[in-house]
């Protein structure tokens, strides 16, 4: 086992009755990284996190933490700690007692325990709140107490189950940055569960996108965003501009396609197996990487699809254009409003234009599942 793997998940399946909440998942979470499990509700991300914490036992497969098999180890013997979704602070104990709760099971004397509590409270800017009870705190303070309580035990891995869900939007943004900074300065592995792709992107080094119990794609945050491996990941990351076409030829690292909306495009293969000539494939281009032009640019080697403008939403910083090609495919284009403002509404619904993009921004989609880390 490589030395830098913090949590090794091997072929883990969790069945509740007939349904598999988690289905044959294998992941390596590296030491000291901020790793996010991202997906819609019911995708199995929380169940997977709870298996790392020891609150659920895998039906199949194994989980090792720092090289030691933990598959059947009860939670209280694991070197991991959890920040629960609704924090699960003990309402009958003060902030100080909450943070000291787990230290009692560590070989340290009273004064050392007190010092550790003070230290962690200071780290999370909670000094002076020792004697308060959880119900006398704001949402953000409670969230920090939950974090302090878990971090007091210096876990090898910190598990976070949507801990920002209860915070309002503005505070959430602040906490995201603080949490990322904290993780970097402590060097502890964070495994973070969220359904919010923006949140995952803001904080994570790497992301695993889950869908129906399986990992659809795992990899560097930016890569998962820019180069989604499957249609589900593309959709979930807000890139729902799907183009289809048939393969003309696949020379070297590129695939030349005949687009069903008209025109040709040579898109990068991205390391996958080369498709055969004549095969139907789909690819996606992110909305901010599409461009609307008056003229067909295919002669200049720029893929161009004839489209009609359906709608325009002016959003201040950007404008969102909805367009449609001859085959009925709908596309969304984000345009930064960097032109003079008279031009931001230069096209009306019904205008006939060309949808252009750089071939390097096109991402070939594979048939679901399997994107390895």
């Amino acid at each position: 086992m490589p030395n830098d793997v913090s949590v090794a998940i091997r072929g883990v399946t969790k069945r509740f009755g007939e349904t598999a909440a988690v289905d044959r998942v294998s992941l390596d979470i590296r030491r000291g990284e901020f790793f996010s499990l991202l997906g819609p509700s019911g995708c199995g991300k929380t169940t997977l996190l709870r298996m790392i914490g020891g609150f659920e036992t895998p039906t199949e497969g194994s989980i090792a933490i720092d090289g030691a098999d933990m598959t059947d180890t009860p939670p209280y013997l694991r070197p991991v700690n959890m920040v629960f979704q609704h924090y699960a602070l003990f309402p009958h104990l003060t902030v100080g007692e909450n943070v000291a709760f787990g230290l009692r099971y560590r070989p340290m004397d009273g004064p050392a325990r007190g010092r550790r509590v003070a230290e962690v409270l200071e780290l999370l800017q909670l000094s002076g709140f020792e004697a308060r009870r959880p119900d006398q705190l704001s949402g953000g303070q409670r969230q920090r107490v939950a974090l302090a309580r878990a971090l007091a035990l210096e876990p090898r891995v910190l598990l976070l189950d949507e801990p920002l869900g209860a915070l309002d939007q503005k505070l959430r943004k602040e906490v995201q940055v603080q949490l990322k900074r904290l993780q970097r300065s402590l060097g502890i592995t964070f495994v973070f569960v969220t359904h919010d792709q923006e949140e995952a992107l803001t904080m994570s080094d790497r992301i695993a996108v889950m869908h129906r119990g399986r990992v659809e794609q795992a990899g560097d945050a930016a890569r998962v965003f820019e180069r989604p491996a499957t249609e589900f990941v593309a959709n979930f990351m807000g890139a729902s501009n799907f183009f289809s076409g048939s393969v003309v030829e696949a020379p070297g690292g590129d695939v030349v396609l005949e687009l069903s909306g008209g025109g040709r495009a040579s898109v990068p293969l991205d390391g996958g197996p080369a498709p055969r000539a004549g095969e139907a494939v789909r690819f996606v281009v992110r909305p901010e990487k599409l461009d609307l032009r008056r003229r067909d640019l295919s002669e200049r080697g720029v893929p161009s699809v004839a489209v009609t403008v359906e709608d325009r939403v002016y959003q201040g910083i950007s404008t969102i254009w909805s367009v449609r090609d001859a085959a009925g495919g709908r596309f969304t284009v984000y345009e930064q409003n960097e032109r003079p403002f008279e031009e931001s509404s230069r096209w009306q619904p019904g205008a006939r234009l060309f949808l252009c993009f750089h071939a390097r921004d096109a991402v070939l989609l594979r048939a679901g599942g399997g994107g390895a880390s």
Partner: protein
Amino acid sequence: MSADAGGGRSRAAYPLILPTWAVLGVFFLLPLCVLFVISFAQRGTYGGLKPIEDLGAYVLSGKFLSHYARSLHPIYLQIFWRSIWMAVVTTIVCLLVSYPVAYYVAIVAPPRRRNLLLGLVVIPFWTSFLIRTYAWMFILRTEGLANRLLMAAGLTSHPLELLYNDFSVLIGLVYGELPFMILPLYASLEKLDRSLLEASADLGAPARETFRRVTIPMTAPGIAAGIVLVFVPSLGQFIVSDLLGGAKTILAGNLVQNQFAVARNKPFGSAVAFELTAAVLLLLLGYAAYTRRRGEDVLL
């Protein structure tokens, strides 16, 4: 009892609590006042009350306190002490038996089976308490079910004296009060947030520590309510001690009942009854203070 617990209750709410106060007044407060007054009177020749000719002289002589003085006689103090002791033991046994039961129903059993299990706890109420107590006589007597089973199992060669002693009274009391402990415990265990138990385990606490440091403190309101609900009726019980205790086990409840029904000494019976009520009210006041501090109440 909890009428003033709301603190800033507006005047507009007074008409709404009026029916409650009316019922409490007619069926509780008024009889209590009557009891209180009678407890200062003297017994007449035929069981009624002796008329008082000179109230001033009667009060000054201190005779109006004679029944309270009499109740402090060692023979009665011993009965009070026994009653309190039996009620305490009953409460402790009920708590020890009920907690695992309530814990199982509220936390371990699958949710769809909870109502069935709770139903089983309540079913005995469909039969009169008197009949159920008689049933215990049939179970515990020398040729009863318990003895036959014990002998069939070879645990004893001759029938044991299970009936007409403290043991049988205790069984009857525990049996009768058990549901009143199980139900409030269930109510507070069912409310218990499971993630608190998980958080405790996550922080390194083994199951026993989680139970001691989280489960028990979090269900303390249910425990307090159960203690009150069991201790109070146990203190005034007379049916169980009468039927299962024979003549040997006299409790405070029997003493009151005897004074009214057998000795026909209403003033003395009233004095003892009032003392019991006062003790219970003190207990309830303590409970009310406790729940006000906790801000959580299962009972009132």
